[in-house]
């Protein structure tokens, strides 16, 4: 195998990795908000269920969760769903990251000064206006560093999709290295992850700076 073929094959894997990365963020950032609302719900049953769920997701390996999401429907209900591999990967990633984001959101919201809610209430802002206009923008600023951490971890975690034999960059590196008895694919994969995270850190830093006009 020439280096060009290797890079072309791995390039396709990189695109798949990037696909998991963005779809996971698009799904888990809002889903985390929903989970956080469930966790903070005044309904104690709902809050306890959500708390238990978050604890399971955070307390077990993502790799195991991917296997459960993929094989669960068959072993539990006898369903064999065609083309389920990719959806199972996305469900696994989105649910896992949403639970982490939910806890980050919760921490950010609970750290907010009660005076902000009271000022908004006195001025007559509705509950949703208070949350979306007054509270959330400030929460986003405080939690951004924690979000950055998670996003960087996600770049590397995408490699876990190899568990379900999905041909992303890590799976391909392993395969090509074995078949070609070559070390190069590992180096290529390593550079890819490093550069991806460099870009992530750069972008997040820009976002943080764009919010530094107030403190």
């Amino acid at each position, binding site marked *: 195998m020439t280096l060009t073929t290797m890079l072309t094959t791995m390039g396709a894997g990189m695109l798949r990795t990037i696909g998991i990365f963005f779809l996971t963020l698009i799904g888990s950032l809002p889903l985390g908000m929903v989970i956080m609302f469930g966790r903070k719900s005044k309904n104690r049953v709902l809050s306890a269920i959500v708390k238990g769920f978050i604890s399971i997701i955070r307390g077990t390996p993502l790799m195991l969760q991917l296997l459960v999401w993929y094989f669960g429907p068959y072993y539990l209900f006898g369903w064999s769903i065609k083309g389920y591999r990719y959806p199972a990967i996305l469900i696994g990633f989105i649910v896992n990251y949403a639970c982490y984001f939910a806890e980050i959101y919760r921490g950010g919201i609970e750290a907010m*000064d009660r*005076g*902000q809610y*009271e*000022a908004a*209430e*006195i*001025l*007559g*802002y509705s509950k949703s*206006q208070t949350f979306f*206009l*007054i509270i959330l*923008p*400030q929460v986003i*600023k405080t939690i951004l560093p924690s979000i950055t951490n998670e996003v960087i971890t996600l770049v590397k975690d995408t490699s876990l999709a190899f568990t379900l034999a999905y041909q992303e960059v890590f799976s391909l590196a392993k395969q090509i290295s074995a078949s070609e008895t070559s070390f190069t694919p590992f180096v290529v994969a390593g550079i890819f992850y490093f550069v991806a995270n460099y870009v992530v850190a750069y972008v997040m830093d820009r976002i943080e700076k764009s919010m530094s*006009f*107030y*403190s």
Partner: protein
Amino acid sequence: MILEMKNIEKHFEDCEVLHDISLSVDSGEVVSIIGPSGSGKSTLLRCATFLEKIDRGFISYKGETVAHTPDGAKAEYVSRKEIAKAKNYFGLVFQNFNLFPHYSVLKNVMDAPVTVQKRDRKEAEAEAVKLLGKMGLSDKANAYPCQLSGGQKQRVAIARALAMNPDILFFDEPTSALDPELTGEVLKIIRQLADEKMTMVIVTHEMNFARAVSNRVIFMDGGYIVEEGDPEEVFGNPKQERTRQFLQNYNQ
């Protein structure tokens, strides 16, 4: 009568913080509430502004009942919609300003009129600019709260409250978080509002200010109104021993 509160009772868990308090405020009146920490002054303001719910008693704004207490029962509030309407009648200035840090000074002042009262943006902005001018903050319209001194922040908070065109303005220890040096600029603004016949209820530890600016002074202690009356009388010739004691400690 703008505000009427009658026989207010309020508990926090086992501790009673307001005992049978009544407070009525007429249009154009300036009422100061003084008293030691923990006497229930701030709780009374928080009940008047619905940040706390009363256990028993009666509250009305401009003759519209907000809460009343049927015989032998707990206080009942009117519907959320009617409460929202009553909220339009008052503004509150906090001890800690509670400005929105992510909004510019101008937006702090004009956002609620636009977002809540659905007023025309241009008109709200023009009024906000005018109010900031009155507060001596014309040059700070585009600054953010973190760039202001405490006294400037409090003046923005007053402008923000005034922008809603309230009938009555409450102040909860407006200068307690300020350096003595910055207290004057905030008191000057409040005095100016008093001259313009703005109806105000001021919880304060600034005795000389309370004496000079108010039509009526209320001294509270331990959740009771101990003494109430003309400022010259309450400060110059207090009838109650407890009032005398409190004022003496203050003058030392």
